[in-house]
């Protein structure tokens, strides 16, 4: 009886779906191409494609998920730039006009070669201990008290760098507590209105990049900080950027208004003063279902990395979105594999490389790619560094055959290895038990799946889910055992990241053993002047760890940014420098005609 009722209910539901899909047929459908013919089109120099011509005006609504900023002062955490990033600016910015075939922006790697002058007009390193920044003339602060549009000068830069480093008037307050992101600096002085000289205590290959564009070098208004002590209160935020933050409804939304006196032209279309869009609204939405509903119903124009943690990560959601709303534009990007794990190689059973290799060989990477990711993932094993940083990346095909063998799905060979290593199947079929420490915000599906593959070879893996705050002490104090979440194939700053993962001086020691030989290679890579030599050394270290199975590789799944078709000028870019995400929105425009045609 109950079953029949249920079936009837389902039938009725299905009926509703059919009716709904009928009703919901895209209103834009047929007319759009005809109308587009008359529309003025221009060439996008970065992609070589024709797009509707830039236009001014309109409103863009985005949704941001994940950790919303707690206040508006980037001095206390770079995450704050998720709300201040279009208001305050840095000395350098990545090249928006660059040919996307040359640099795709579809990962978070920031090579210094792509950096272009921004608030600094140029820079120079006359000797290894000196960096000179020539500050751009004619840049004004927002027309907002207490700055009231006064000119941005070298003194402002000195003030901000002093605050970052705990120098000058900030000697007592001390430097920013975020040590890694803080560059070295002995003194910062303004030699004239537009020149800043930074003296380093020792030569550093990374200092210039850090001063130009780390998360803490946003230029804040000295007058505001002198008056209030900081810019934690968003009402006090004044910058030089394309937008002014005009409202921040706590826990709910941000509103940005165009800065009518912005100083910069569109890098792609010189002569077009930025920004294009009049008002930008950011909604803080933590639940994926909720922001997707907003996208489907046109309440939200933009989702994805540039505006926060609102990428689509599952192929199923992607397909469902494509089916229900084919007009939505999707942009794929790959930054790293979040389906990989680090192994504690200091304790049994994982102190034996055969056991580690067996764990890897138990997983059917290609099969998982086919079934779970529908062939969209980068399933071929990668090292610590991913394909996005091609100069530091060794493709799987070029790995030695011996190493490759350890990454091919072969459960029988894996079982043989475990037998050989002295872990025979017990009476219940189990060889040993271990724990997989999973990070809550990483996709869980692969961890669950991997556990079933390991069960196939007799390894009983229990999944322990850690949240962000619980994971840090576990990693720091090494209170975990077995396997722990880790990212592989990272498209990020290569030498720094590999050092972080491998070098003895790193605060994190995931695998539990130190290799002086690897330290020596990495030290040599940091010291050398030759970029090619550095690439060779980093690749050697990376391959060594893969050969010794310090990590378990899992497929690198694509992430998808999504936006309405009337948002123009976007090509899946992630950021224009560390945390320079929102500033991308200043370079996009709204095709108002298309939007109106589609009934919004």
């Amino acid at each position: 009886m109950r079953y029949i009722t249920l079936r009837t209910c389902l039938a009725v539901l299905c009926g509703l779906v059919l009716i709904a899909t009928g009703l919901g047929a895209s209103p834009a459908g047929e007319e759009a191409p005809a109308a587009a013919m008359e529309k003025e089109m221009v060439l996008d120099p970065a992609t070589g494609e024709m797009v509707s011509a830039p236009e001014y005006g309109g409103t863009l609504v985005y949704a941001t998920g994940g950790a919303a900023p707690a206040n508006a002062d980037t001095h206390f955490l770079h995450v704050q730039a998720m709300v201040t990033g279009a208001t305050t600016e840095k000395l350098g910015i990545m090249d928006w006009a660059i040919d996307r075939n040359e640099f795709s922006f579809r990962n978070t790697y920031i090579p210094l070669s792509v950096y272009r002058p921004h608030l600094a007009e140029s820079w120079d390193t006359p000797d290894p201990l000196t960096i000179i920044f020539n500050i751009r003339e004619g840049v004004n602060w927002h027309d907002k008290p207490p700055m009231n549009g006064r000119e941005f000068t070298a003194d402002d830069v000195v003030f901000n760098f002093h605050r970052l480093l705990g120098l000058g008037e900030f000697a007592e307050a001390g430097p920013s507590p975020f040590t890694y992101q803080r560059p070295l600096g002995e003194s910062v002085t303004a030699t004239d209105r537009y020149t800043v000289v930074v003296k380093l205590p020792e030569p550093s290959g990374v200092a210039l990049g850090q001063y130009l564009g780390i998360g803490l070098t946003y230029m804040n208004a000295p007058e505001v900080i002198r008056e209030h002590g900081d810019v934690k209160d968003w009402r006090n935020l004044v910058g030089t950027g394309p937008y002014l933050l005009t409202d921040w409804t706590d826990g709910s939304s941000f509103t940005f208004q165009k800065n009518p006196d912005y100083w910069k032209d569109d890098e792609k279309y010189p002569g077009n003063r930025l920004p294009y869009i009049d008002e930008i609204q950011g909604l803080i939405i933590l639940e994926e279902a909720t922001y997707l509903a907003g996208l489907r119903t046109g309440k939200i124009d933009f989702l994805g990395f540039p505006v926060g943690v609102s990428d689509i990560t599952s192929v199923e959601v992607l397909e469902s979105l494509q089916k229900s709303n084919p007009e939505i534009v999707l942009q794929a990007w790959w930054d790293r594999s979040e389906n990989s794990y680090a192994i504690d190689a200091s304790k049994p059973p994982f102190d034996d490389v055969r056991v580690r290799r067996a764990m890897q060989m138990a997983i059917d990477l290609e099969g998982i790619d086919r079934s779970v990711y529908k062939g969209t993932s980068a399933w071929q094993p990668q090292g610590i560094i991913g394909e996005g940083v091609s100069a530091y990346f060794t493709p799987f095909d070029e790995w030695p055959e011996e190493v490759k063998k350890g990454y091919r799905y072969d459960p029988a060979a894996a079982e043989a290895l475990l037998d050989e290593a002295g872990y025979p199947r017990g009476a219940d079929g189990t060889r040993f038990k271990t724990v997989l420490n999973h990070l809550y915000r990483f996709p869980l599906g692969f961890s669950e799946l991997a556990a079933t593959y390991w069960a196939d070879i007799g390894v009983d893996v229990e999944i322990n889910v850690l949240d962000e705050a619980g994971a840090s002490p576990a990693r720091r104090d090494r209170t975990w055992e077995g396997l722990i979440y880790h990212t592989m194939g990272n498209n990020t700053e290569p030498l720094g990241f590999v050092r972080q993962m491998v070098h003895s001086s790193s605060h994190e020691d995931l695998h539990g053993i130190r290799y002086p030989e690897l330290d020596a290679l990495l030290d040599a890579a940091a010291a050398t002047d030759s970029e090619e030599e550095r690439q060779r050394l980093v690749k050697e270290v990376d391959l060594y760890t893969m050969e010794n199975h310090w990590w378990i590789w899992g497929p690198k799944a694509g992430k998808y940014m999504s936006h309405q078709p009337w948002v123009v000028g976007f090509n899946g870019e992630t950021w224009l420098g560390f945390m320079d995400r929102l500033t991308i929105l200043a370079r996009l425009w709204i095709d108002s005609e298309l939007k109106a045609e589609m009934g919004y």
Partner: protein
Amino acid sequence: MKAHVIRRLLLVIPTLFILSILVFLSVRFIPGDVIDVMQGRLGGMGQVDREALERMLGLDQPVYVQYGRWLGDILLHGSLGRSLMGDWSVEEKILARLPVTVELGVLSIVIGLLIALPVGIYSAIRQDTAVDYAGRSIAILGLATPNFWLALMVMIYPAIWWGWSPPMRLITFGEDPLGNLGMFLIPSLILGTYLAAATMRMTRTMMLEVLRQDYIRTAWSKGLKERVVVVRHAVKNVLIPVVTLIGLQLPILVGGAVIIENIFNLPGLGRLMLVALNDRDFPVVAGINLVFGTAVMGINLVIDLVYAVLDPRIRYQ
């Protein structure tokens, strides 16, 4: 009577004290702290200066000193401290978020009563009839269906099928009263149906009990006019325990609000709490719990006292 009121008020003091220790300590036993969260946000790429931050945030002091300061701030300055993550004032933030949660709560309770009272009363009058079963079934189904499932279905399917979704951005009552009510209606319905089950059950039981009293049976048998009188009389009797029950449901309501606020994107205290818990933002978590706890105790105290006035036989034991 006076003695009873004074006694009841005095008893609140030790309870509040225990509550303050409970809310202050509990969150500190959770593994990890706000500095670990900041470390995590650096994405494994950097390191924070733990010692400097501990000094900056006052986490280097022993827990009892921290508790003493916290309690002192509350008693002397009426301040709940500052957020460790954002350095804003906890009491200001709570006051700013309170209206959303209160509106959600009040609407849910009203909707819950609108469902529970008629169903409960009618079910009792028509005990063991189809109407009784249907009414109760609907009310109990509200309890038996997980809130978040209903909420997610409302969010996902209409958007796919009809291109419709609930509002995404908070509309305050001042801006647009109708839009505001529209935004709160669906979440309140979901929470309200959840609360309705217990209230309905209470109402029904009380009604059944009252209806079995001899004098009522006699009146009942006399005809329709009497029945109206009876129902009115019975309902009056039922209302007091129902109000008590609502007081007891407040903590459940607050819990439910955590999930519902998240899905319907209502920036209330539940959502603030969840974020603060993830951030290990101790003063915020403790502050919200203290405010909730005190509010629940206060409301229950008022209910108790009103109850004692209305029904002098029942005094606090």
